[in-house]
């Protein structure tokens, strides 16, 4: 690594931060559209708001190459936009229309897919990302493609048995997997300590020999740096793990009022909003607030336009259910 003058370092940091701010803002703007769709009952399925976790998703996904594999999680949408997916095809899925990435079959976030950008989908059963990411990483390694396979999951899902089975194998085979645990402390209504007897997930990856980092998930720069290092390790054949301590600001799904959760805790979480924090940091670094306002405005405009395009796409008809079972 070359050394930089303090000034160059700060400029670079500001550039990175701006990029992460933009991706965080884009993800949030997209979710705002989805919330709107949910409120107007245009979208009536389940949506798991990512508010509070957009920053870390942006920070990791912007560190990936376009052809690196991504298995995203259910909490929000920033994984997808930050990895380069077209918001029209994401929103097309929410509208259940042919513009969606699943051509009208899906409706909602769960199965958005974009293989050209390495976005290989999501399972409806938590923890299924572990063996799948190991398999994708194995394919990349076998073919000498140099791609990593990144998989996101919550701390709840990190208790699934697939974590262990895939972890020992990834280590034994030196697979380029990057596993990112979004530890928001809650799995629906269950507090992690209560059901797992610990608040810390990283030790279980370290025990298997993964390269392991624990990072403040609300600090986009810290997460971004951790991601770069994890990806470097993985490309070198050491499976890597990041535990990002984060905050679930909203309920588990849209409409969940979180009665099981302390109000003060939620209030405290709100103060750790990653977009807010990144914005403050940028201002500290001398960025003009107008620039930030503009970024957010652009993001909103982009997502509104995408929604317009998606909602006017045709609906599938009943025969659609029979397409795609077989290759």
């Amino acid at each position: 690594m070359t050394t930089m003058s303090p000034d160059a370092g700060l400029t670079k940091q500001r550039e990175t931060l701006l990029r992460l701010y933009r991706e965080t803002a884009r993800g949030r703007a997209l979710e705002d559209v989805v919330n709107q769709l949910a409120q107007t009952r245009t979208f009536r399925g389940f949506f798991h708001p990512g508010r509070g976790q957009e920053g870390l998703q942006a920070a990791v996904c912007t560190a990936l190459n376009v052809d690196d594999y991504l298995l995203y999680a259910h909490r929000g949408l920033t994984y997808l936009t930050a990895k380069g997916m077209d918001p029209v095809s994401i929103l097309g899925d929410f509208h259940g229309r042919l513009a969606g990435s699943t051509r009208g079959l899906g409706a909602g976030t769960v199965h958005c897919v974009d293989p050209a950008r390495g976005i290989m989908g999501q399972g409806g059963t938590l923890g299924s990302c572990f063996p799948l990411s190991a398999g994708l990483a194995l394919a990349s390694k076998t073919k000498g493609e140099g791609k990593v396979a990144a998989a996101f999951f919550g701390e709840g899902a990190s208790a699934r048995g697939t974590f262990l089975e895939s972890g020992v194998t990834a280590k034994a085979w030196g697979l380029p997997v990057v596993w990112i645990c979004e530890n928001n402390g809650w799995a629906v209504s269950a507090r992690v300590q209560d059901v797992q007897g610990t608040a810390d997930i990283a030790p279980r990856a370290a025990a298997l020999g993964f390269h392991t980092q624990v990072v403040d998930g609300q600090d986009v720069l810290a997460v971004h740096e951790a991601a770069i290092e994890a990806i470097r390790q993985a490309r070198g054949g050491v499976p890597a793990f990041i535990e990002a301590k984060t905050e679930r600001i909203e309920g588990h799904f849209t409409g969940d009022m979180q009665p099981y959760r302390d109000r003060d805790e939620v209030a405290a979480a709100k103060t750790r909003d990653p977009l807010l924090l990144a914005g403050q940091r940028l201002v500290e670094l001398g960025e003009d607030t107008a620039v930030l306002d503009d970024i957010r405005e652009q993001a909103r405009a982009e997502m509104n336009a995408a929604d317009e395009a998606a909602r006017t796409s045709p609906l599938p008809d009943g025969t659609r259910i029979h397409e795609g079972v077989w290759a």
Partner: protein
Amino acid sequence: MSDKPITYAWAINHALDEEMQRDPDVFLMGQDVGRMGGVFGLTRGLHDKFGGERVRDVSIVEHLVVGGAVGAALGGLRPVAEVQFADFLLLAGDESFHKMAKWRYMHGGILTLPMVVRAPCGIQGGVGAEHSQSPEGHYWHTPGIKIAVPSTPADAKGLLKSAIRDDNPVIYFENRRLYRVKGEVSADPELLVPFGQGKVRRVGRDVTIVAWSAMVDAALEAAEILEREEISVEIVDPRTLVPFDMETVSTSVRKTSRLLVLHEASLTMGPGAEIAARAADELFEHLDAPVKRLAGTDNPIPQNMALEQFCYPQTDQIVSTVRDLAKW
């Protein structure tokens, strides 16, 4: 807990409440069954009433939920485990297909596993391929497991209570489309619905429909329409698949000579196959028409809510199938 109509969901809640009250060995375990009262609200109030030791939240650990229930049952408790969706029961493959079904038998028949797994099934709400299935067929092909498939609030309560008191492992499939359906439910805590006793939901002459769970209501609706065309439909609800009450089915088919089996699970190798096969053997001489099956389509369930209706039998399809059958 009066005799006035309550929902299928509350009927389940009451059954749990009463049985926990009756027997201190009964306890609940599953994701969000505790303070939250279940993601569908089925266990509301039970955590407050019985405490965290008897209403136990778990992490995302389906193997532990089912396998832990097996162990707890062997240790003398009577677990009622919940998976959030019936599809997730398949995740605990070893624990459900092997441990729960076979542990007793493998060990010479001297151990006892009184346990229930509650499995919310059915297509509703755009939850997609892994949250919409009715996998009762997979378990009917697994000797050692009893299976309940209630279609009404009264049966939901009475069968769950029987399941909890049964010394065998039981999978209790509750259909999410029925949760808000209301019906009269007895408040008598000793009124059980026995396993293995089907029920004639509607008396008719011309065609027998065998249906359970949420398909019973669809069958009843179709029967009303057909009645206007003077086609008289008899509807048999087996209520449990294991044990299966073939006698009630036979009695009906002996009368009508025509059989339609109706279910929500996908057609091929679905539970209708077993019933049709038994009819083709045991009732051969009584049949005046081909045995028909109407069932879910042979594809995973799409997440798009608008497409769900195409994936399981709708009333008009039932009507036209029965109409054709009646012509024989």
